[in-house]
């Protein structure tokens, strides 16, 4: 049974010390991968791609805006999956990881909102309009914040994580709304133009840097997620023996 395998794997990773060391090894690599892909992506975005004939160079914002937006949405999806596992199997690591997703996702959402409205000024002549896409994205930010707040409001962290997990599921409704908002309502915001595979309405020369940046944000998310989860783990297990051995035995970078 496939589920059995998955659950088993989770439990294996679920042992705090294992996870801690796992993260300790993996995180630096992810950060490295992020640095490289981001470097390539940014270079191409700023120097290689020709400036747009009508938007001018302002369209270069796309290479920040869109990856941030997509990762913000994808990050929430990841968090949702983790939350479901946490609620069903009560695996502690998934509780912790789900909660660690929130701040990262919030940051990405913030970046999307900020770059978006910066882009909006030259394109639409205003920083902000209350159209569906923009609003629903703002809502996503609030959901992320709500999750963080709820988790923080409980002294007993496991309890807090499970309560917040319920909220995660509830908030998942918003993700499709964000994505399809441009189709459901006539918004200022442009409709989906980019097809990563197949015929894209976008000029081919503009695609590579976008792909690099999207890749970079993925690596970034993984790395940050590992880091934060490990911190939370340390925080919670501060009085456990394995932590004692960790910090006294293996010297910690940073």
């Amino acid at each position, binding site marked *: 049974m496939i589920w059995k395998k998955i659950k088993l794997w989770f439990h294996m990773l679920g042992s705090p010390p294992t996870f801690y060391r796992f993260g300790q090894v993996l995180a630096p690599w992810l*950060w490295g991968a992020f640095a490289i892909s*981001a470097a390539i992506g*940014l270079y191409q975005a*700023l*120097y290689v791609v020709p*400036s747009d004939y009508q938007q*001018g*160079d*302002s369209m*270069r*914002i796309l290479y*920040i*805006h869109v990856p*941030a937006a997509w990762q913000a949405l994808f990050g929430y999806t990841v968090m949702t999956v983790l939350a479901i596992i946490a609620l069903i199997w009560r695996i502690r690591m998934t509780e912790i990881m789900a909660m660690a997703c929130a*701040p*990262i996702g919030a*940051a*990405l959402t*913030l*970046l999307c909102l*900020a*770059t978006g409205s*910066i*882009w909006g*000024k*030259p394109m639409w002549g205003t920083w902000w309009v209350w159209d569906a896409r923009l609003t629903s994205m703002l809502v996503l930010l609030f959901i992320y914040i709500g999750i963080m707040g709820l988790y923080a409001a409980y002294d007993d962290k496991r309890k807090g994580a499970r309560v917040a997990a319920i909220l995660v599921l509830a908030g998942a409704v918003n993700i499709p709304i964000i994505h399809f908002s441009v189709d459901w309502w006539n918004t200022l915001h442009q409709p989906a133009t980019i097809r990563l595979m197949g015929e894209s309405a976008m000029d081919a020369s503009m695609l590579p840097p976008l792909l690099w940046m999207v890749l970079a944000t993925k690596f*970034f998310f993984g*790395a*940050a997620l590992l*880091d*934060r989860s*490990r*911190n939370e783990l*340390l*925080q919670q297990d*501060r*009085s*456990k*023996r394995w*932590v*004692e051995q960790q*910090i*006294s035995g293996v010297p*910690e970078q*940073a």
Partner: protein
Amino acid sequence: MIPELTHAPYVWSSYGLFAVIFAWQFLQPMIKRSRLIDELKQAAEERRAAGSVQS
């Protein structure tokens, strides 16, 4: 050789924000962990000093 861009302030502020936010997301956990580990190390020291290593 910074490229000459139209809408330069918009573009640069966006890329700047990207840099800031990502750096923040990288540094904050890092700093927090090092602080945490120092704390725990000290606590462990004290416990050893007290002679009772609790599990």
